[in-house]
């Protein structure tokens, strides 16, 4: 294994996200140093999958092995951050910050990291894709718990929780057997008997009637095991349900401390550009090869789709090409509501997925199952992002960089600035015989031109309305920045010569 690969693995297991003052990945110094020593002592762990299994086993074996758990939490932190970011962007709740969302995601993972990482299969998906549904749902549930609804009553709260949610809450509330089973059975009886018949919006649900209490007690008596135990009484089931309510209310208070506050003596260091880029670079190369193979088939599918649905290509580029330009904005561009955009995009993707599955089946000559189709569905999303960004938008920006008279002169500057591992503006400026301020001015100028040209292209080729061009400004700036960070400078320099 190369040092570079080792660095990537170390970064994966020791990096987490800070959102203040601005979002950035940060490496935990202690985790990093300890992992370096561990890998030196155990060369067999120089593999991401093996290391992940090792930490899962360690954390599962001993609940007190916080170090192993912290490695797992660092490993899943990118998923926590991305889920927090996407839900925060969608909800825009004024009373909660991005840090709060991240806190919720981390609190959820603190309880489930071992279980989820144990089940995670790296060959099937990326960790952030795999964890996206449970994390988004956990955040959504948590945020919705603060809504002024029927759930604020004890009875609403009991009805709104899942079996798993109640079990976790009771365990966290230090309820052990046999009380836990009796609480659980009583809750089951409550769900069987209680019905919120036509309660008005935002009204608190009423307490069960005397008849219902009797029925809950009777249900518990019938279902308890062994049946020789004393029958349940109404006061008893009331008391047991109160324990459930208290446990559930207690579980809504998030108590999670980020790694840095847990270990105040730790030194933090910002993850190096090299490590981050190396990791993404690895991912990109492998992914690029895989996605390239699908391009011929899917690109022609998009062409035939666009014959029947002229807006399809434009909608797909806006959805997948620009991070942060969400379906609400796309809806405004097309003059329809977000949910209709969502349906249309879903139907376009269904068409593409069908083409992809049929094509893939002919390639391998095997009948697929649902899991295969689901994997291809994930791959299709990745391909759409890759295709819209790399094959269309980056390609346009690359051509602009090559041909625009004001830009082609700056290729050397860009190459020096973005092509090196560590940015030292003073050294670069000195090398180019300009002042650092001049370097900054030129960089801003390049970005502005590229973004302007991109907006012109969007206006001319996709007929994007002026209001959308204004709305897409932030996303297109990010796209230009990402392009400049990954542009093929070696090729551009060579062509210039």
């Amino acid at each position, binding site marked *: 294994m190369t040092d570079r690969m080792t660095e990537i693995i170390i970064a994966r297991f020791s990096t987490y996200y800070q959102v203040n003052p601005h979002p950035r990945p940060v490496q935990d110094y202690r985790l990093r140093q300890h992992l370096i020593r561990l890998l030196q002592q155990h060369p067999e762990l120089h593999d991401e999958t093996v290391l992940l299994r090792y930490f899962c086993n360690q954390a599962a074996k001993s609940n007190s092995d916080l170090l192993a758990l912290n490695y797992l939490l660092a490993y899943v932190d990118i998923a926590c951050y991305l889920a927090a970011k996407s839900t925060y962007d969608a*909800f825009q709740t004024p009373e909660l910050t991005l840090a709060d969302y991240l806190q919720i995601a981390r609190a959820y993972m603190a309880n489930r990291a071992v279980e989820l990482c144990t089940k995670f299969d790296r060959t099937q998906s990326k960790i952030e894709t795999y964890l996206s*549904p449970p994390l988004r749902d956990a955040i*959504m549930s948590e945020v919705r718990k603060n*809504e002024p609804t029927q759930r604020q009553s004890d009875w609403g709260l009991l*009805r*709104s929780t899942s079996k798993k949610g109640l079990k976790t809450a009771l365990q966290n509330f230090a309820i052990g057997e046999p009380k836990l089973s009796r609480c659980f059975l009583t809750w089951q009886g409550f769900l*069987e008997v209680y019905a919120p018949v036509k309660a008005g919006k935002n009204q608190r649900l009423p307490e069960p009637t005397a008849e219902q209490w009797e029925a809950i007690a009777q249900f518990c008596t019938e279902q308890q095991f062994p049946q020789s135990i004393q029958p349940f009484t109404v006061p008893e089931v009331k008391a047991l349900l109160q324990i459930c309510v208290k446990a559930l209310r207690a579980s809504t208070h998030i108590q999670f401390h980020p790694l840095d506050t847990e270990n105040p003596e730790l030194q933090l260091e910002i993850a190096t550009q090299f490590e981050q880029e190396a990791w993404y670079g690895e991912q990109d190369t492998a992914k690029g090869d895989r996605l390239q193979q699908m391009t011929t088939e899917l690109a022609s599918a998009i062409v035939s789709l666009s014959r029947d649905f002229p807006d399809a290509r434009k909608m797909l580029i806006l959805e997948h090409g620009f991070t942060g330009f969400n379906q609400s904005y796309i809806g405004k561009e097309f003059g329809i509501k977000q949910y209709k955009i969502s349906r249309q995009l879903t139907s376009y993707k269904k068409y593409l997925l069908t083409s992809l599955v049929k094509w893939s089946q002919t390639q391998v000559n095997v009948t697929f199952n649902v899991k295969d*189709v689901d994997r291809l569905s994930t791959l299709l999303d990745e391909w759409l992002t890759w295709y819209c960004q790399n094959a269309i938008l980056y390609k346009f920006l690359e051509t602009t960089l090559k041909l625009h008279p004001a830009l082609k002169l700056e290729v050397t500057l860009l190459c020096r600035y973005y092509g090196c591992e560590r940015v030292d503006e003073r050294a670069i400026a000195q090398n180019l015989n300009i002042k650092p301020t001049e370097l900054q001015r030129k960089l801003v100028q390049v970005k502005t031109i590229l973004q302007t040209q991109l907006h012109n292209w969007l206006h001319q080729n996709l007929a994007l309305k002026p209001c959308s061009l204004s709305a897409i400004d932030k996303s297109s700036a990010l796209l230009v920045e990402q392009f400049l960070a990954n542009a093929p400078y070696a090729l551009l320099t060579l062509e210039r010569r």
Partner: protein
Amino acid sequence: MTLTLAQLSLACPDQLWLEFSESQQKTAWPATQDYSYEAALHRAFLNRLTLAVLSPEFSAASETSVQLASSENLWEFVTGFALNLGKSRLVIIPSETIDTDEFSVPQEWVDIPALAADYYLAVQVNLEDGWLRVWGFSTHRKLKTEGRYDGGDRTYSLDVEDLFENLNTLWVSQQLCPAEKAEIQPLPTLSHNQVERFIGDLGKPSLYSPRLKMSFAHWGALLAADDFREQLYNRRIGKESAMQKVVNLTQSIYSNLWLFLDELVEVHGVNLLAARGGSRTEENEGDRPSQARGRMIDLGIQLVRHPVALIVYLSPESNNKWNILLQLRPSGGQTYLPPDVQMIVLDDAGEVFLEARSRQADNWIQLEFSGEPGERFSVKVALGDASLVEDFVI
């Protein structure tokens, strides 16, 4: 603040989110008398609403027609409904829980062959804010092989991360992939006596579903048969057919006096084999089932060594009529009835309608007639001065 549907759907754009109106909610409420307890009524409402909102969407998305493929009387017992979608069968499980960390499916939808489906969809319903979403799905095989079975509430559960999230995967799979069903163990065949007993026990009113009151094998077999389920449902909601009413006869038929035929044979040594080559229920295999109950009659000193059994067989005839066959049989392992035992059918005015009297070496005596729902009759069994009368209503 309350999150809007637009905000929520932006967070999970790959899931299907649908809005519904107050009027759709109102329309979805079933008639109160259609379910025997409030929780079942609410369950039926939730399922009907989900069905109404999802069906048009599924039809459009899958480009095939959608048909409800399960009975509404199931909601008296369990949540969920089935849809036929082209060649695939889907089971939809709506739930109002906010937490969607696990998807639980009642065992009935998984282990009853007639109810099991190819795909199982998890639907979260928010009645207050008027929306629902399909937040994941599973195949039968995945649910059965990877799901956690909980014997406490008889459910199979999968964690959210183990579900398929994207519905396009479902639409494409049902078109291009073979169905993924795990093997399902066959359920036992219930005897008519078992069916009657189970329906008698589970048909008693309660404020919760009787689904956990007996072993799953028996419960599943009972629920799987449309006829039996219909009978149980009707019994619970108090809307029994004429046949069930006649089985009820009087309150006393469900008292300890009235027994199933196998109990008469086992406990009281009633000789049924001597008659017609077998029991009445066996003769009727393949027809609509007849029902039979019997009670022992001891007329004191007159029959001290020879108590007899009065047996009532009921079976449907055409034109809203019911066939009623009454038999008097010996018990205690005896082959013959005592001589001169009378069995008399009286009409609702107390007049003799039919009559039979045992002779020397009679294996049994019987009377047979037809009646319409609502008609009353009585049966008098007498020997000498001693007699006993039972009243019935068809």
